[in-house]
């Protein structure tokens, strides 16, 4: 049996996109009233919910507090119904812990933590439906939630995955592509300055191709940032109209 043809000769991918095209991104901010900030984001069939509390005083052990900046606490989880086969435990497994750590690192680079010494910011992200690119969707959703919470950031953090097939980088992989043996790379970018907040890659890739791949990922991230920017402006308009 032949495997899936990830990129046809005509340049179309499995789901009909071209190599550089992203999936459809839809997002809403301020979905919860109790939280300080919240957002819901769909990227194709991957759906994530992000909630932000803080900055507030340190909870739990106060000893973890840092005297010059805020501590960012991230928790990543996946709903049991989010994947094709039902998950046993929604969070706390190895993969989730690793993902939480990645999110933490990403946001430590983006949030202006030095403004809130000795305090804590909590970011909770939950994947409701998983169809590839979980990390990047979480980052994008969390960015919106942080903005919704009014916490100052250097810039939007936008993330995107890219894969490498037939010498061509594919932007924003879906699950079928990710599982089809593509070496994929996830990248989080601060688009205005072009700084990279996090790059993560597990697969093998020849060094010569790395540059083109990162290039493609950065372009994709910039596209995401445009969408997010629009969502934020839209949201601001709505809320300010109401408050007027």
């Amino acid at each position, binding site marked *: *049996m032949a495997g899936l*043809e990830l990129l046809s000769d005509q340049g*179309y991918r*499995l*789901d009909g*996109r071209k190599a550089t095209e992203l999936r459809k991104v839809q997002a809403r901010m301020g979905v919860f009233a109790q939280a300080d900030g919240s957002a819901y984001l769909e990227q194709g069939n991957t759906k994530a919910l992000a909630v932000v509390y803080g900055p507030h005083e340190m909870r739990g052990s106060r000893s973890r507090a840092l005297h010059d900046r805020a501590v960012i606490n991230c928790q990543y989880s996946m709903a049991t119904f989010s994947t094709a086969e039902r998950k046993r435990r929604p969070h706390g497994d190895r993969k989730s812990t690793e993902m939480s750590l990645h999110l933490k690192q990403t946001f430590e680079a983006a949030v202006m933590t030095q403004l809130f010494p000795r305090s804590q910011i909590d970011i909770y992200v939950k994947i409701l439906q998983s169809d590839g690119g979980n990390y990047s969707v979480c980052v994008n959703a969390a960015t919106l939630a942080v903005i919704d919470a009014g916490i100052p950031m250097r810039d939007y953090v936008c993330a995107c995955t890219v894969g490498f097939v037939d010498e061509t980088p594919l932007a924003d992989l879906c699950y*079928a592509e990710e599982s089809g043996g593509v070496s994929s790379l996830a990248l989080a970018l601060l688009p205005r300055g072009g700084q990279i907040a996090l790059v993560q890659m597990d697969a093998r890739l020849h060094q010569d191709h790395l540059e083109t791949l990162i290039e493609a990922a950065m372009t994709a991230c910039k596209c995401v940032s445009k969408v997010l920017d629009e969502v934020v402006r839209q949201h601001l308009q709505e809320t300010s109209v109401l408050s007027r």
Partner: protein
Amino acid sequence: MLKSKTFVKKTRSGGVMKVVREHYLRDDIWCGSEVCTECKQDSTVLQKDACIESSLCPYPHYLVPDTNVVLHQIDVLEDPVIRNVIILQTVLQEVRHRSAPVYKRLKDIIHEQGRHFYTFTNEHHRETFIEREPGESANDRNDRAIRVAAKWYSQHLKTPESGPDGLKVVLLTNDQSNKLKAEETGLAVYKFDEYIKSLTGNPELVDCLALSNDDKNEITSSKVLFPEHLPLSKVQAGIKSGSFLQGTFRASRDNYLEATVFVQGEGEDSTEVLIQGLQNLNRAVHQDVVAVQLLPKNQWVAPSSVVLQDDGAAKDDNVDEDEEEKVLTGPLTETARRATGKVVGIIKRNWRPFCGMLNVSQIKESTRHLFTPADRRIPRIRIETRQASTLAGQRIMVAIDGWPKDSRYPNGHFVRSLGGAGEKDTEEEVLLLEHDVPHQVFSQAVLSFLPKTPWSITPEDMAQRQDLRHLTVCSVDPPGCTDIDDALHCRELENGKLEVGVHIADVSHFIRPGNALDKEAANRGTTVYLCGKRIDMVPELLSSNLCSLRSNVERFAFSCIWEMNHKAEILKTRFTKSVINSKASLTYAEAQMRIDDANKNDDITKSLRGLNKLAKILKRKRIENGALTLSSLEVRFHIDSETHDPIDLQTKELMETNSMVEEFMLLANISVAQKIYDEFPESALLRKHPAPPPSNYDILIKAAKSKNVMIHTDSAKALADSLDVAKVDGFQYFNTLLRILATRCMMQAVYFCSGMDSDFHHYGLASPIYTHFTSPIRRYADIIVHRLLAVAIGADSTYPDLMDKHKQSALCNNLNYRHKMSQYAQRASVAFHTQLFFKTRGIINEEGFVLFVRKNAIIVLIPKFGLEGTVFFNSKDKASPSLVFDEEGPSLKVEQHTFHIFDQVKVTISLDDSNIQHQKIRMALTEPVIPGVSVPAPEAEPQAKKQKLDR
């Protein structure tokens, strides 16, 4: 851009799982036609005046074939007459799913610019995408999708300016219900064979049509001849439970009613199952993967020793099989019985197009004929053609379409004609095809990666290479060689030591990894040398020009330079990419003359003498280490320059300079092997020659014993030594004969990847490690070795596949296969030219030696021609003489005379062309005279020969 989603449910083992995939629909997929003004496409594929002369569709039209048409009629679609075809994505995907080879061929057609095949991505087009309706099967949905797309095209192309005779779209399908439904929607739709038959300009295409299902019923009687094949699910269950065995079907070359199935067991233990009789063979064809069921032990039989060919007139299907089977049952001894089975199912067909000839049917008007493949292991194939009279006497290619259970022969269709049988070009083509040698001209894609001509060395190139142009480098090759891949130099250094350099053409500089040129070369694996013809591995521009180290031009080389003392001990080894300028291209004879001519004292000659001196020391050392010098006779034809027919034949002579070049090549190969293995212990490409199992030597030991000579085979060294001292007074040729025999005992040397094996020893050369480095123009293995070495010395960058031991090992398998096939093809070519030679000679009397003794024959070697032939003592049409075979001798007593190995005999040689497909050399004994066996006079000879003598 519009977006929609489809929900697909899939079940996998164990449970039901819902898979949701996105499916984007687009409005920027263009139709690809020149006529269209709406689509904003950059380039068009489909032509405006798409005309094929067809009586059904007189208007210009595009063809839309459905999946089954593509799958079954790919031979017709490949014909250049068929142009302007729209391949729908639905069709392409289905084909990909169902048959990889057809998919590959289809893609090749699509990529060919002149064919105007366009792939329309209908599944993602907003207007042609359809969703599967409840209750609709996947196939029905696909058929509907094809109809919808065809409909869309016909409306889309209906522009105001194109009148009623404007472009139309013609749907081709073989499915009756599909056709009806399409007609309802007002589409132009034809059955594929209807359409092809309507092509008035090209009636010959009809023969390429594969027989579709409903035709088969006409062709055969209703009587069921074969048991039904089991469905795959049952076969798999049977294999799992152990009641069936899975293996490769290997038909017997000599007996069409017999075959073996080779069952690959775990590790070393593999078994062979014998299959006898048409019923048990059950329509399996050579090389198929089949499932066999073992018969109960009391039905086991022994392999028959009868030679049986399926010839004569086409047997009707209702022929009495008992008659055919009877011949098989011979006397059965308990010991000879072997595991016997029957084929119950076919797991994978391995049909390829077969070369052969047509047996024209006796009935003049008949359009059905039998086709006899050149390969005896393939059954005869029934084909339908109207051009039988033209095809008779030609070599043709035929593909099998199927083998229904009520047909004695498989059904097939004509693919193409190769030319008249017996003609040189045709026969060469046949032997290339039958040995699976890729010999097509290089495609445009491959040629596009060649360097631009005129080519010159740029300063950047110079900067990366060492300039060795000042050295007195020269090359020594056989006469007429244009692909020179090695050159040598030797000079004395100031410190009194000698510097020796081997310069190898730097092919890897021109062939970059992964491009089409590289892939093509990797597939071809080796250049194949036939008599008077060369099938290149890389395009000629590289092989005979840019890479070839010709004299007095600047060429890139990969150099291996040693510093040696006068005892030929290596003090220092250095590898570098370089630029050289060869001072002379010599032949072996010229080089020898220079060395011998005491008056010559120029640089080239001095260099040659130095090399020669060192080579002798090297050779002595190598032989002391236990390297074998074996012998095989190679013949060389003198070819007439006008007719290209062989006019004379001589065995190749070996000169001192041959071994001089060889010695340094071996040294370079060993040095490089060591270097790349040190650097890449996991992924070095090496070559090994396993030691043969002791039993292989039995024949050699026995043969030598008959002349009271002892041969020791405990080690290569012992063998080499005992071969050296083996001499019989008054029999000079004895030693050569022994060496020829020893060669036959050896194993094949193979390429392998160092990470996948632990035994690296090269038995024949007595070297612990070996590889091929010195002929990158004609061997792909050398290109890989060059790349590895270049990485090792930091001259080039690496790439992933080079370091992947699994990919490397897969490549080795292909190279070994190609290497083996090219040797077979070479031998077949020599055999064919020998036949041509004897055709013009009539009958020749020659002296020869008995090389082997068999139960009913002796095998005679004629040293003058390097020719080997069999003299049979029993023939079909006359009583055989009394034969007594002694296995221990081995000797054969015919009437009063006893033949031993190495006996000198005299034979007559002639060409037996009674069977035009399999011409062969026939030998008959003239001395010693044995009444009733030898042939002092024409009367005693077989039929074919008598006619010749009379002439």
